[in-house]
Structures are given as C-alpha cells and as structure tokens.
C-alpha cells in the first residue's frame, strides 16, 4: 500500500467506525430513508466523491486502487449511500475519452451536489448493456427518448440518470435529469438497505444530453463494467472480512455445552477456511486494481477472475457466518445477516459471476 492509500484507509476506517453506527443505519432503513444527507455531505467533504476525477475537473486523480481501499471500508461498515455507483460507475461513463459531458456536472458530482446513477437493465432485454430496446429519436433541438428501465441501483435518491438506448441502430447513452417531464421514477427499497428504481421514460432531452454513441459508448461501457467489478469485489471483500470477524468474536463468547463455541475444532477449521478465502480475495482485488490502473496486459483476466472469486467467497463466508452464529444471525437487529444481503446484491450488480466466468474463459483461450 502506498502512503496515499494508507491515509485513505485510515481516514475512512476512523470516520465510519466512529460515526457510521449500525443501529442508526438500521433505524434509517426501517424508516424508509434511502440515505443520510448528513453522511453524504461528510463523505463529499472527506474527498471520496472527488477520488476518480482528474485534477482539471476538480477531482483527486486517484485510480481504482485508491477507490477500492474506500469501497472495502464501505463494505465493512455497510454504507448505504451510493457513492461508488455515482462517482466511479456513472463517473466513468461521463469522463471517458471522447464523450460529451458538461464539466459542471462532474464538479457537482465531485462535491456531492449531483448523484448520478446508470440505468441500463430492461424488462425484456438480455442482461447485456448493448441489448436495449429503448430508443432515441432526433427531434428539433434534441432527442425523444422512449423506453423502460429496471433495477436501477441507487435510483431512489439519484439526481440524474445515465440511460442507455439505441440511436439509429447505434448504442448510445444520454443524461436525464430526475425532474424531466415524461420520466416516472418508481422507487423502492432494496433488501440490502439501499434504494432501487424502475423508470418509465418518454422524455425530450436537449442535444447536449447525448453523452456518447457508437464505438465510444461501447468502449466507455466496457471500462465502466470493469470498474463495477472492481468496486463490487472490493466492497464484498470488506463485507466478508467483517462477517468473519463478527463470527470469530461471537463464537469466542457464546457458551454451549459448557464451553465457548470457538473451542470446537469443527468450527475452528471452518473459520480457518474463511480466513483462507478472505486472503485469496484480497490478493486478487489488489492485483486486479493495480493491473487496471497500469493498463497491464493481463488486466481483463485478473478483473474477471476477481469477480468470480470474490462472488464465490463472499457467498461462502457470509453464509457460513450466519450458520456459525445460529439463530441470532437470522434477525434484522444483528449485523451479520446484513453483510450477507449486501454481498448477494453486489453479486448481481451489472456483471454477474457466471458472465464473468464465461468471459474469463474467452479471454484466456484467446491469449
């Protein structure tokens, strides 16, 4: 770890440990709040929203290695605010070389004023970003966008959406403001304490809202998907490690048959297996982020491997964490089940485990 990364980790660790209380989070979730504006503002002040943006755009110019360090802490502390969804994923689509984004929007994202999320999945389209039935049609002074989007992560509190669609048979994406006429945002809470939304769109957007088309749009999305994988994997890593720690602490204290559960070898070895998986995942997450930032030859191989591995291990560890705790971990008031739910959501986030495995094979066999 570089000094920058250590400082980021320590600052995030300290802030979240001291201020991001699990019970307060639970109260917010149960009250139907999708995020805490107070935390959101502080996270912007901490600089986390500016991390991936270049210095010219008012950002910190950090790579995925630095973003992953923070994402891991988000996983540990079950942060519900969609920071990475906005600044890393949507941010990546909005700052890709050759795209057409007003720099004022990036400045707003970096200061937390704007929260932008990607809307790509559709009810009847195969889960691949280029398969979209949404249509863009040129009209006077802009475009008419007609379509339907589902499972938009962070959609409950977003101020803008990056919406994928076809324009003259080319893949494209446009920026749509939340308040746009003809946009219906049907938002809902998600199992992992966040928000999602389904969108119905028949809106007119100005010409300047067209961010990218054709090859540029496809390449930008490929990069964003790689970063989704890196952020999902880093956050899963933090969640699985926290679930393991909770399990170790609990089994040391819980007395059954007159002795701590942790004294039983059958359970010790299962926890050792969890350690092994955490360490293997950490190695891959670090290597994949480094390969991405450096544009290494084996970048894709490492990123796809990381998705498969962390998805497998994330499930295994959070499932084991519940099992080793027993009944207490099946309750809403206990933290461990919430890691389990978040990991399940991260598994499905834009790039699935199975898709990554399939692509991994294609990349390796082509090499």
């Amino acid at each position, binding site marked *: 770890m570089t000094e920058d990364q250590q400082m980021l980790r320590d600052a995030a660790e300290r802030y979240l440990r001291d201020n991001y209380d699990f019970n307060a989070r639970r109260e917010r979730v149960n009250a139907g709040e999708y995020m805490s504006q107070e935390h959101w503002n502080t996270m912007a002040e901490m600089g986390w929203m500016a991390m991936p943006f270049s210095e010219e755009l008012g950002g910190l110019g950090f790579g995925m290695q630095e973003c992953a360090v923070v994402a891991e802490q988000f996983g540990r502390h079950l942060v519900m605010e969609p920071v990475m969804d906005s600044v890393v994923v949507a941010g990546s689509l909005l700052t890709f070389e050759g795209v057409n984004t007003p720099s004022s929007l990036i400045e707003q994202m970096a200061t937390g004023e704007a929260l932008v999320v990607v809307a790509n999945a559709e009810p009847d389209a195969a889960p691949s970003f280029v398969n979209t039935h949404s249509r863009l049609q040129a009209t006077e002074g802009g475009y008419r966008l007609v379509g339907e989007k589902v499972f938009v992560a962070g959609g409950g509190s977003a101020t803008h959406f990056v919406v994928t669609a076809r324009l003259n048979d080319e893949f494209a994406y446009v920026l749509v403001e939340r308040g746009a006429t003809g946009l219906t945002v049907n938002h809902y809470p998600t199992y992992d304490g966040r928000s999602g939304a389904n969108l119905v769109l028949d809106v007119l957007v100005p010409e300047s809202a067209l961010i990218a088309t054709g090859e540029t749009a496809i390449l930008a999305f490929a990069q964003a998907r790689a970063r989704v994988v890196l952020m999902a994997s880093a956050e899963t890593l933090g969640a699985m490690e926290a679930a393991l720690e909770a399990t*170790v602490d609990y089994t*040391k204290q819980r007395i059954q048959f007159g002795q701590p559960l*942790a*004294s039983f*070898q059958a359970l*010790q*070895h299962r*926890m*050792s*297996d969890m*350690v*092994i998986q955490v*360490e*293997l*995942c950490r*190695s*891959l997450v*670090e*290597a994949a982020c480094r390969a991405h930032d450096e544009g290494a030859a084996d970048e894709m*191989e*490492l990123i796809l*491997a990381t998705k*498969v*591995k962390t998805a497998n291990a994330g499930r295994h560890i959070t499932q084991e964490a519940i099992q080793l705790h027993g009944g207490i971990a099946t309750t809403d008031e206990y933290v461990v089940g919430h890691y389990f739910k978040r990991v399940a959501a991260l598994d499905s986030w834009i790039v699935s485990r199975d898709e990554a*495995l399939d692509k*991994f*094979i294609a990349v*390796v*066999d082509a090499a």
Partner: protein
Amino acid sequence: MKDYNAFREEVRSFLAEALTPDLVRAGELTTSVFSDFEAALKWHKILHEKGWVAPDWPEEYGGPGWDINERYIFQEECKLANAPTVVMMALQMLGPLLMHYGTEEQKAYYLPRILSGEDMWCQGYSEPGSGSDLASLKTSAVRDGDDYIVNGTKIWTSMAQHSNRIFCLVKTNKEVKPQAGISFLLIDLDTPGITIDEIISLDGHVEQCQVFFDNVRVPVANLIGEENDGWSVAKYLLEFERGGHNFTIDIKKQLAKLRKQARKVKARDGKPKLQDPVFRHRLAEAEIEAMALEQTELRIKGALNAGGNPGALSSLVKCVGTELGQRFNELSVDAVGQAVTPYHADSLNPRYEGKGPVPGYALTTMAEYINNRAATIYGGTAEIQRTIIAKQILKL
C-alpha cells in the same frame, strides 16, 4: 537493483547445456516430489559442481547467496526445463538447521558432505503411533556413557533406502510433558541394530520406508542442540518445510500440462476436451484459484523482501497450494478418461526404451493423481494447518 533478466538468462543457458536428455526424461516422468534416484543424484552432482545445489544456503556455507527473487527464478526455470528434483531433506531442512543449531565441528563435517551428495539424509519424525501428534513419539534414547542406546521405529522415512544417515526426534526424558523430553539426534544408518523395510505405495513404487532401531548405539556427540531441546529444533525445521516452497511454479506447470492434454484428448462430441463446456468451466474455476494463489505468493514474497515474516500465511498457502494441486490432478484424470487405467511401471522408468500400453499424453497422470494425495498429509496435514491458522491468525 539487480538485473534479474540477466540472471534468468544465465540460468536458462546453464540448464540448456547441463540438462542432458536422460535427465529431462527423468524430469518429465517425475510423478511425486522425488525423481528417479539415479537421475536425481547425477543432477545433484552437476549442480554442486556449478555451486547451485543449495539455492537457499548463504555463501559462507557453500550456497550461491541468492536473494529470494533469484531463488524463485531458479526454481521456476528448473521446473520449466523439466529438470529432475534433487533429494531435498538435507538441502532444505537439515542444512539450515545445522547452520542455526550445529556446533562448529558438526557444521564443518556435515555441510560439505550434504553439498557434494556424499551423504544422503532421510527424516525420522513420524512413528506408527505418532503422526500429527508428533510429540507423543516413543522412540527412546537412553544415555550409556558417551552413547545413547536407541530403540523404536520411524515411519514415512522417504528415501531411507537410498540414504546413509537419518536425523531423528527421540525421547530422552519420559518424566516431563511430551514436548520437553525430546532430543534431535543424527544417526548413521549402517550402525548395527538398524533395519529398513520398504513400503510399497499405492502407485506400486517405493518412496517411503519404515526404519527399526534395536539397541542402536549413537554417540552423544551426534546430538543437535541441547538434550531435551529437540522440540524447538524441530519446529524451526518445520518452518523451512512449509515456508520454503513456491506452489505457483508447480501449479503453472500442472496447468500447462493439463491444457496440452485436454487439447489432445477428444470429448464425447469428437471435439477436443478443452472445448467441452462442462470441463472448461471446471478448469476455469481452478485457473482462477491458481491466480489467487499466485497473487498471494507474490504478496508473501513482497513481505519477505521487505524483511517481514509470512507467519501463518505460509500455512495458508500450504493448504491452498496442495489442495489446488490435487484439484488439477483430478481434472487431469477426468481429461484423459480411460487412459488412466493401464498400470505399466516400466513406462515411468526413464531408462525404459520400449512402448507400453499408456498413451504418451497420459503417461504420468494416474501416478501423479495417486502420489499427490500425500501432499495434504506430509509437512503438517491440511487439518494441522487449519489449526495453526485458527490459533495464530484468529487467536482461537
């Protein structure tokens, strides 16, 4: 900053010249941690002449004085070039231990003989009644003047049939708790009262032996460390057995071999097995595990380079490396199908020139599958490693 590329080139050109076809053949036909003994000894002597037989030893004891990166490169290049393995018990275990605990006389006498290959050592730890619970060992050494009288038996003594010496853990005090009454003793195998029984392994070959001691006289001067301090000596040695190995190099070799096999063998539909989606997905999951292992070993190497200690991470990679190796063995067995069935021992002898019933691509597959079951048993079982992880990392 050292020029590691130049070093790699130097190793490569040496191997290209020194590895004669018979040695390469022995390397290719290696199905366990041990190569054909004749070839291993020949290779040992060639390496000794070059000064490279003990990559881990410091220069003052006759090693090449390589840093960890150079050792890694050497190990990797030997593997890629199909070099046979040299018998490692003395080079990797006893040697470093003598350097740490031996007297000047012991070091001066034994270390050069290890390097030259004049002495072949085997390890006498396990007993029929003492495996994972090593401290319960029963082989006794009772003082009689300047000698000990040794009685008992040692088992799983690899290569004892080719060795002239054995390093043993013996019980010198039965009155204290088990760990406190153990001593570390060097014994000449030609001493009267010693018999060696060969054990036929599942693959039909002999690698393991059982050694019996019946009133064997051993000079007290052969003690390493203090009397009754053998347990800490042994623990020091076990760290070498665990930490000194890079699994990724072996795994990569296995993977390359497996891919070659799976291109050659036809699946049900007549296409290469490698294109069978069921097989390919299983292989991909194992490849991903191999990448995770590689990155973890690189992290450990980074820590070692920075002067750190990998600690229980070496238990972690022992578990992952050995279990993954076994997974690749299984995939290999599945890839070649019924070609695993013919048993033809001669085909695995590097000096055999005939043609047996096993096709070339499957020659070593079944024997490797069989022999590698031991990998999760020796050097501290997978279960012992998990207990170490639980204790040292989780503090359970």
